Structures are given as structure tokens and as C-alpha cells.
């Protein structure tokens, strides 16, 4: 069990004090429950994980670890770049004390990480995937009650992801997991409960799907503000707190481009099905003109050095126009008799 009471955290760097990253976080993570941490970039997910791991200390409040907790398994940190993988593993095994036999640990890690000869090469020569595999394998070699994962599976290939998932499933009942991930599939697969971080506050959800829904509501809001239509309207409809706000945001937007993009996307679906060849050709040339217009607009935006956020609507419009163009072209090709090639 991990108890978090009245946790406050902010960073002090170079004589500047930043805003609270975490504000008054109170959580009790029961034993044996795997938890997914959700939130936008910079919401404080990694900070919370570091505090749970004891790598960092809070400004106020406390974290009580009533069980064995791993270090945050992730891409950064934990390894000395100039030492080989084997030497790093040895170091960590020795730090964790006499209950573990160093040779056993090395064997386990070697089997899991499948690094081959690179195991005896300096860590700094490793790719990010190799690092993640090593870090993951290393943490699994110890019997922790709670494993902390900070996007550890993000860079792995499919085989590794399957292996990691299986390794965790084997540990169910013996250990639980607190994981930060943007991959919703893996969250749903491995976690039961969820924590959604927003504006420094943490909300506990007993069901991971509710936490994902809350996260979707938040991100959809932000996407609307950027002028992007949410891809999953059904998911958005499910969530209670954000039904009207997104619309208001898109109306208030000064640029007309995003709504156009939305219409065009719809138009792809609305393309009439029963067309004769000349009609289809005519439509193709029309759509081609639209596509060219969208492209020049996008290139103009690029030339104007607009910030990425403002440039995005143009890019989206271009993508939509391109999709339409491809659809129309396919239709023309389908209608064309095969011998008509010239």
C-alpha cells in the first residue's frame, strides 16, 4: 500500500520558483491494484512517479511506502553511460543487497533483455529500445511489490511489448504496477484503476476506463481549441463534463479554416456513389483544384513562419483535401474501363 498525504511539489531552478506541479494530492493506492497515470504532457505524471519512488522529495506532505517499490522504469536515468550493461546490472544488484545473488540477477536480465553481445558494451552505445529492455528486465529481476513504469514500453517493438505484458501478467497477485503511458490499449490491459492528473490535482478512478474517459474529455477540449475535430465523437459523448465547451471554443476561433476542414472531411463520405465516368472526371478536377488551393495556403503558412499551433489547421485542411483527392481518383480509376489506358 502506498499512502500519499497532502503532497505539494514545485521546482526551484536557477533562482526561479515555478508554479506548483502537484497541489494537494491525496491518494491511497491499495496493495495489489495496478494503476494507470493519465494526464497531458507536463501534468506532473513523471514527477508523481519520482515522488512515489523516493527519488525526489516533496515540498510539503509525505509519501508513505508500506511495501517494496521499484525505481521508475523508463528511458532516462538509472544507468551510467560509460559502463557496460553488465556492470550496471551488477551495481544495481549489489545496491539491493544480499538477498539477491548477483549472478542470478545477471542471468535473468540477460535472458529477458536479449541484448546479445551488446550486454558487454557501454550503455551509451545502446539504442533507446535496448535501454528500455535492459531497464525493464533489470527491474523484473527483483521481487518488488509495486513496479513503477514511466513509458517503459513506449519504444519497444511488438515482441518486446508482448513480452513485457506477459511478464507483468505473470506477476499478478504477487505485484502491482503504477504506469504512466499514452498507450490506452496497454493501460486497459494491465491496469484496473486510474489516476487522472489535471492542473496539479489528482483524481482517483476505480475503473481505468473512467480515467481514460476523463483524460479524453480534457484532451478533446484542447484539441477543439486548436481547431481539430475529435476523432472519436462517441467517446466524447460518453463523458459528462465537456459537452458544450468544445463547440464554444471552435466558434470563438478567429480562423475559418478548421471548420472548412471539418466540412471537407465530411464531404469525402458524402461523395455520390453513382457517377458516370465524365462526371467523376469532372469532380476529380474540381477536387484537384481544391487540393492545390489547400496546398498553397499551407505552404504560405509555412513561409510566414507561423507557430506550429496556428499552422496546424492549414495542415489538417491539406490532409483532408488530399484524402478527398485520392478517393476521387480511385473512383475515376474504378469507373475507367481497363483498356482505356493511354
Amino acid at each position, binding site marked *: 500500500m502506498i499512502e500519499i498525504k497532502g503532497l505539494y511539489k514545485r521546482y526551484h531552478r536557477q533562482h526561479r520558483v515555478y508554479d506548483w506541479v502537484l497541489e494537494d494530492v491525496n491518494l491511497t493506492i491499495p496493495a495489489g491494484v495496478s494503476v494507470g497515470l493519465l494526464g497531458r504532457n507536463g501534468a506532473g505524471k513523471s514527477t508523481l512517479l519520482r515522488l512515489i519512488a523516493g*527519488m*525526489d522529495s516533496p515540498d510539503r506532505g509525505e509519501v508513505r511506502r508500506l511495501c517494496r517499490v521499484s525505481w521508475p522504469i523508463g528511458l532516462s536515468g538509472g544507468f*551510467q553511460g560509460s559502463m557496460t550493461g553488465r*556492470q550496471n546490472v551488477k551495481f544495481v544488484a549489489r*545496491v*539491493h*543487497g544480499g538477498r539477491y545473488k548477483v549472478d542470478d540477477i545477471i542471468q535473468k536480465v540477460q535472458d529477458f533483455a536479449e541484448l546479445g553481445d551488446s550486454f558487454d558494451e557501454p550503455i551509451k552505445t545502446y539504442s533507446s529500445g535496448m535501454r528500455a529492455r535492459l531497464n525493464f528486465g533489470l527491474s523484473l529481476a527483483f521481487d518488488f511489490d509495486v513496479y513503477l513504469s514511466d513509458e517503459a514500453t513506449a519504444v519497444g517493438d511488438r515482441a518486446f511489448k508482448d513480452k513485457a505484458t506477459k511478464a507483468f501478467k505473470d506477476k499478478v497477485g504477487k505485484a502491482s504496477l503504477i504506469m504512466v503511458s499514452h498507450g490506452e490499449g496497454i493501460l486497459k490491459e494491465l491496469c484496473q484503476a486510474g489516476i487522472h492528473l489535471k492542473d496539479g490535482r489528482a483524481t482517483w478512478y476505480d475503473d481505468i476506463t473512467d480515467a481514460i474517459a476523463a483524460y479524453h474529455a480534457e484532451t478533446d477540449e484542447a484539441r477543439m481549441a486548436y481547431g481539430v475535430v475529435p476523432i472519436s465523437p462517441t467517446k466524447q459523448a460518453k463523458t459528462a463534463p465537456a459537452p458544450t465547451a468544445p463547440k464554444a471554443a471552435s466558434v470563438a476561433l478567429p480562423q475559418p479554416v478548421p471548420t472548412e476542414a471539418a466540412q471537407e472531411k465530411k464531404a469525402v463520405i458524402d461523395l455520390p456513389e453513382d457517377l458516370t465516368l465524365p462526371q467523376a472526371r469532372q469532380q476529380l478536377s474540381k477536387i484537384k483544384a481544391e487540393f492545390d488551393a489547400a496546398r498553397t495556403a499551407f505552404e504560405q503558412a509555412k513561409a510566414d513562419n507561423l507557430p506550429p499551433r496556428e499552422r496546424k489547421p492549414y495542415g489538417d485542411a491539406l490532409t483532408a483535401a488530399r484524402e478527398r483527392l485520392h478517393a476521387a481518383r480511385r473512383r475515376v480509376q474504378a469507373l475507367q474501363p481497363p483498356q482505356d489506358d493511354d
Partner: protein
Amino acid sequence: MSQASNPPLSNGVRTSWQVTRSVWYAMFMREAISRTMADRMGWFWMIAEPMAFTLIMVSMRSFISSDRLVVNAEFIPWMITGMMGFFMIREGMMRGLGAVDANSALFAYRQVLPVDPVLVRNALEGLLRTLIFLLFIAGALMLNVDMVPDNALTAMGWWLSLWCLGLGLGLIASVVGTLVPELATVVKMVNMPLLILSGVIFPLNHLPHWLLEYLLYNPIVHGLELLRASFFHGYKVVHGTDATYFWMFTLATIALGLLMHVRFKEKLKAK
């Protein structure tokens, strides 16, 4: 100290001392490998550097004057003891300076504290320096230079005391140098003048009294003179050499260094 006297607590959690001991062990093995094996000819330079230094200094001195300036001690052993003692303190300080930054990746494991690499590096440095000193003594004996300490026990005592001073300075330097990188440059710059002001190359006996009064604020002078006094029977130490002052200074630096590590633990980790 043995495993039996420190059984794990009933719930399987290790005691703080057990954790610290395994961290020190792990880190010592790590540092030992990187210190001796990491760069090519690491071992060679450890011995060649003081050797080259001795040769240069001896040849310089024989050009400048051939007089016997030191009472009751031959010049070469006199210089080697001073140089070894000085290097011990200097390395203690310099190793401490880079210790925290070099190991910052390892603070991911909450068992590892910023003070651990400093202590481990100093212990390792002390062992290596002792080994090199013994090699020098053996080498000198083979060349018929009398380097056997006349009072071996006190010699060992003062050698350890110099190590303690190096540790204290290293602890302070590790905190100060990591938090304020500008000061790390100052510490590195101070080294060269300190070599001369500590009476490693030139005996301080002949300096005027008013100047000596100031030079004796430097605790390294006291330490080196007392080390030499234990090596050479009847050696006349610089007037004003005081063992109490040396030890007061050493204990004060160690205490201050440890306190700084307690106070700035989180800041050092966060760096």
C-alpha cells in the same frame, strides 16, 4: 559489523546501515573498475605522474643550489614524503569535486545518496595512494635512498590524518562545486599555488617570520611537517607547527562537509 549482528528486521526490510553498506560495496567495486581500468594505462599514470614530478623537481633543485637546506633529512626523501602527502589531500579534494556529477544517474535508486560517491571515492583514493607510496618507498630502498620511516607508527597515523583532511575538503568541495560550478574552477586554480605554499618543494624554514605566520594558517603545512617529522628522526619542523590546529581544522571540515551534505541532499540529487 557482520551479517549476523545486523539481522534484517522482521518484515524483511533492511536496516539503514545494511542498505548503506551494500551501496558502499556496490559503489566501491564500480569506482575501482572505472578508476583503474577505464582509461588506457590508468595504472601506469598513477605511478608515473609522481615519478615524473619527483624527477623534474630534483633536477631543478640540483641546478638551483646543491646546498643541504633541510636539517637532518635528505632532500629526495624529504620531497617525496611531502609530495605524496600533498597529492593525497589534493586528490581527495579533486575526486570529491566531480563525484556527485559523475554519479548523478545513480540517484535514480533511492538507496544511493550524494554523500556516498564522495566517501567511496575518497576511500578508494586513499587505498591507491597508500599503495603507490609503498611502491615509492620500496623503489627508493632499492636505489639506496633511505626512505624507511624512523617512526613507522606515527608516520601511518599522520598519513591517515592527511587522508582525513582530504576527505573533509572533498566533502565540502563536492557540495560547493556541484551547486556553484564557478567555485569548482576556483578550487582547481588554487591547487598550483597551494603546492608551493604548503612547502612541498621548498622548505619554509628559511622564510621570514612575518610571512610564516600567514603561511601557517594553511593546515596542509602542519600535516606535511608532522608527517616528515615521523619519517626523519631529529627533523626540525617549521617553527609553529601544531598538531592540535591541524586536527581542529580537519574535524571542522569533515563536520561542515557532512552537514552540507545533509542540508543540500535534495538539491544535489536534483541537479
